[in-house]
Every structure is written in structure tokens, then in C-alpha cells.
């Protein structure tokens, strides 16, 4: 088993068509069909109705156990999964790397096997290494694995909540222009969003400093093998030009902990050229919406007034995240009829 291979050509585990058995794992959106994404978004709408009730509790996953296994810091994703599981009546156990046996050197696989041996139904994992959820999915046969962010690779539940939020506001994703601006190189959110938006028929334009664009997406780098993304997206390092006619502008967090490697001359230059501001938003389509996967560096990749202004749907993204994760937990945890 080669892990590096799964990064180059993501191995498709559990690729599904809607008529087949329910999806067991959610690892990335690359193996989702448009129909399957549409179904998830529709189910999420049903889940959002549950969240709007006076009594936010349904018995769907009673008796099921979900573990959130987080090897990286998180506020919204972890809490959102926990709320989603609890509204569906599952028992949710939160585990983080600090304070666990991971500190004593236990391998990821052994931690996974231990959790599986306790009879857990679903593991929601976030890990700094790309491919960690795939590793668990390949070796654990009794639990469902949901990827809550792995390294630079994928964050499929975030992408689905982004799709939901845009569809909810604008009605359809077909033909929309989505501009994703900032540190795409280090963004697993951007990678999953590209799959999701492209599959739903939207046009994705990436913008930001050339040093923070993935090399295999740059049109100029003919010598480098194109990734499957290359045909789905455009890159334009000139944000003002990229914003023309944009329906959605998504700012990514400038991952300052990664900037020491010299990707940027200075934060000030970044702010001047790529911060999403009121004046820049005037270049986009009137009524265009602003998104951010959070956590935000307000005043760096996004101005304060935009972050909390009328065009911002950043809080809607958080609300919708619970509904989308309910739909995904329900789908994977409910269990399939055993064909005899």
C-alpha cells in the first residue's frame, strides 16, 4: 500500500451511483456525481428544517456512536459535527490528539483499530497529513470514515456546505462565477470546493499571489503534469480582473503559520493587492456574495466591513454546516441493509 500514490491519483474508495448501496465513507468530492451532490443538498434542506424546530431532536441515529478524532485544532468543524450528531440522537465522543495515546506515540492506524474495537459506528477525522482518512477507510472495515480535513488535500464537508449556501441564496449553481482568492496552495477547502463547484456547473477562478497558486494549475507551467483540477479552473493573479462579473467571492485564510517559508514579500503587499474590500466588491456582479471558510484574519484577507457586511454569508455557512453534516452523518451512519 502506497500512501503517496493516493495523493497523486486519489484512489476512489466507495465510488457510488445513487442506485447502489449507501456511501460508507466521505473522503473527498472527486468521486461524487452531480446527482449525488444534489441529493446531499436536498437532504440537508430537510435537516435544516429540523434545526429550525422548537425541539431540535430527531431519533434517526439513536444508539449509534460517533467519534470526532481531531489531530488539528478546530472550532466550527468539530462543534458542527458534534451538534449534528447530537440533534440526530447519536452519542458523540470527542477526541483530540493532545491528551490521547497519540502523545505516547500510538500510530493513527492503531488508534483507529482501537476505536473500531469499541463498537463505534463512524469516525470523523481531521489530520495534518493528506490521505490519513483514506488510510483508515482502507484498513477499518466496520466503521464509516468522514474526512473533516486532511493536510492540503480535501475538506469535503466544508465544500458541500459552501455549495449548499450558494444554492440556497442564488437558487442554482449552474453557470455561476466563483472567485476563490488567497492562499490556494495550502487550502484543502479550495481543492474540495473546486471539485464541488465544477461538478455543479459553476466556473471557478482562483486568484492570489503566484507563489500561493498550486503550480500544476498555472497555465504557464507547461512542463508540469496537469492535475485533474487544471481543466476545471482558471487562474488569474490580478484580483480586480478576476472579480469582473463574479457571483461569489470566497476569501481564504492567509495561513500565517505557513508564510515563514517566504511565499510573500510582506503581509502589507498582500493586503494591498488581494484583500477582499468594499471597493473591490464593486467590481463583482451587483449583489454578489462573500464567503470565508473561517477562521478569518479580519483586516488581512478580508476587510472588517466586508466580513460583517450585507453581502457576507459567512455566518450562514456556519449554520448550514450543521445541516449538511447531519445529512452526511445520517447517510453514512444509518447502515445498509445486509444483502443476504
Amino acid at each position, binding site marked *: 500500500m502506497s500512501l503517496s500514490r493516493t495523493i497523486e491519483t486519489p484512489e476512489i474508495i466507495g465510488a*457510488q*451511483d*445513487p*442506485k*447502489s*448501496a*449507501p*456511501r460508507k465513507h466521505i473522503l473527498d468530492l472527486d468521486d461524487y456525481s452531480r446527482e*449525488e451532490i444534489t*441529493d446531499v443538498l*436536498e*437532504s440537508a*434542506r*430537510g*435537516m435544516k*428544517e*429540523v434545526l429550525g*424546530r422548537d*425541539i431540535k*431532536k*430527531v*431519533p*434517526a441515529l439513536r444508539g449509534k456512536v460517533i467519534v470526532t478524532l481531531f489531530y488539528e485544532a478546530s472550532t466550527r468543524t468539530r462543534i458542527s459535527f458534534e451538534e449534528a450528531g447530537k440533534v*440526530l440522537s447519536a452519542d458523540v465522543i470527542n477526541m483530540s490528539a493532545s491528551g490521547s495515546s497519540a502523545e505516547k506515540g500510538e500510530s493513527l492506524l492503531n488508534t483507529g483499530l482501537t476505536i473500531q474495537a469499541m463498537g463505534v459506528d463512524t469516525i470523523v477525522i481531521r489530520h495534518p497529513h493528506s490521505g490519513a482518512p483514506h488510510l483508515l477507510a482502507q484498513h477499518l472495515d466496520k466503521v464509516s470514515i468522514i474526512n473533516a480535513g486532511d493536510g492540503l488535500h480535501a475538506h469535503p464537508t466544508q465544500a458541500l456546505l459552501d455549495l449548499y449556501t450558494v444554492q440556497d441564496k442564488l437558487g442554482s449553481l449552474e453557470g455561476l462565477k466563483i472567485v476563490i482568492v488567497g492562499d490556494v496552495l495550502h487550502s484543502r477547502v479550495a481543492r474540495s470546493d473546486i471539485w464541488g463547484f465544477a461538478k455543479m456547473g459553476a466556473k471557478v477562478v482562483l486568484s492570489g499571489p503566484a507563489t500561493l497558486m498550486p503550480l500544476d494549475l498555472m497555465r504557464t507551467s507547461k512542463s508540469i503534469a496537469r492535475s485533474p483540477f487544471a481543466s476545471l479552473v482558471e487562474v488569474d493573479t490580478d484580483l480586480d480582473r478576476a472579480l469582473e462579473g463574479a457571483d461569489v467571492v470566497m476569501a481564504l485564510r492567509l495561513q500565517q503559520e505557513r508564510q515563514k517559508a517566504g511565499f510573500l514579500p510582506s503581509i502589507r503587499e498582500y493586503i494591498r493587492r488581494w484583500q477582499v474590500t468594499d471597493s473591490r466588491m464593486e467590481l463583482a456582479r451587483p449583489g454578489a456574495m462573500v464567503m470565508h471558510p473561517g477562521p478569518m484574519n479580519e483586516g488581512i484577507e478580508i476587510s472588517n466591513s466586508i466580513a460583517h457586511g450585507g453581502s457576507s454569508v459567512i455566518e450562514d455557512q456556519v449554520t448550514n454546516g450543521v445541516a449538511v453534516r447531519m*445529512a452526511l452523518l*445520517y*447517510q453514512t451512519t*444509518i*447502515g*445498509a*441493509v*445486509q444483502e*443476504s
Partner: protein
Amino acid sequence: MQERQIMNHEDVRRALARVAHEILERNRGAEGLVIVGIHTRGVHLARRIAANLAEFEGIEVPVATLDVSLYRDDNRVRSQSHTKLQPTDIPMGIQGKRVVLVDDVLYTGRTIRAAMDALVDFGRPQQIQLAILLDRGHRELPIRADYVGQNLPTAFNERVKVRLIETDGADEVALIFEDLEVPEESPEISKDEQEA
């Protein structure tokens, strides 16, 4: 696999007209009624019953929709598409109302049990009544319908298929015989059967 027609378009129309009349008779009008259709075909039947009530009595009875998936006790799914939820929409609320639940086929009763659990999460109705297009027997719970389009005794290994114009292009109820032997798995876990 063979198929025999049990009800045609006219049979369905007459049955729904009679059910609407029985609802009016039993409730002495349509005041305070809410019709709640269970997805998928129950929703369309609910709308048709409401249209009948409007025609017969000149009163608009609110129609709500209910997806009971999250309340099922046989909640194991056969395919990807079965994990999809449909909209539950009860804008008028049911507190103190007389609720008429509507579904196409009454079989084990488990769908109706789930529907009642779902309903009480929205309030305390004064009463819950049940209207059904076809009762095929084989109850596993102490549930019976108040309004029945047609009773049809069936065998376990037969399936009932309700087709409606809104979903299938034509109104029809058909009995499908498996010419095979009795299936191995217990029928109540099959959502196909429940919805059939």
C-alpha cells in the same frame, strides 16, 4: 413477475371522493382540519383530498408534508437514494388541530407509527386520523385506518404498486406477484415495500 390491476384512474378518483366525504361527515365539516401527506405519494393524495374538500364544502384545508425517515424503527437503507430526505413542511402547525394523515398503502403500520412520532414533535394535535388509499393487511402494530380507499388482502410475497399521475404519469394500483418462492428477508425492513 406478473402484475394485476386493482384500481384504475376512475376507481382512485371515486375512492378519494368518498374519503373526502367521510372526512367531512366524521368531522362535521372541515373546520380545524390539517391534511398531512406522507412522502412521496401520500403528499399527492393529500393535495387531491384537500381539492375534493374545497370542491364539496368550499373550504380551503391546509396541506402539510411529512418525511418520516428520521423516525423509522427499521432505519436501514437499501440504496444511496433512500438516504435522501424530502421536505417536511408544516407551516400552519398542528397544535390543537385535527390532523388527517394521508398515505398510499397501509401495510405493517410502521410508517404510520413513525409519522405519529414525528407529528407530536410539532405540537399536540387534538386528534390524529388516518386516510389510506389501499390497505393490504399484515399489520405489525395496533394501527388501523379511519378512511380506506380499498381493502386488499395480500400475501407476503406480493407487492403493491401505487402509481399516480403526479409521480408516474397515470393513476393505478397494481398487485405484483413474485412468481418466485417467499423472500428470505423479513419484509418490514424494505423501504421499497413500505412505499409501494
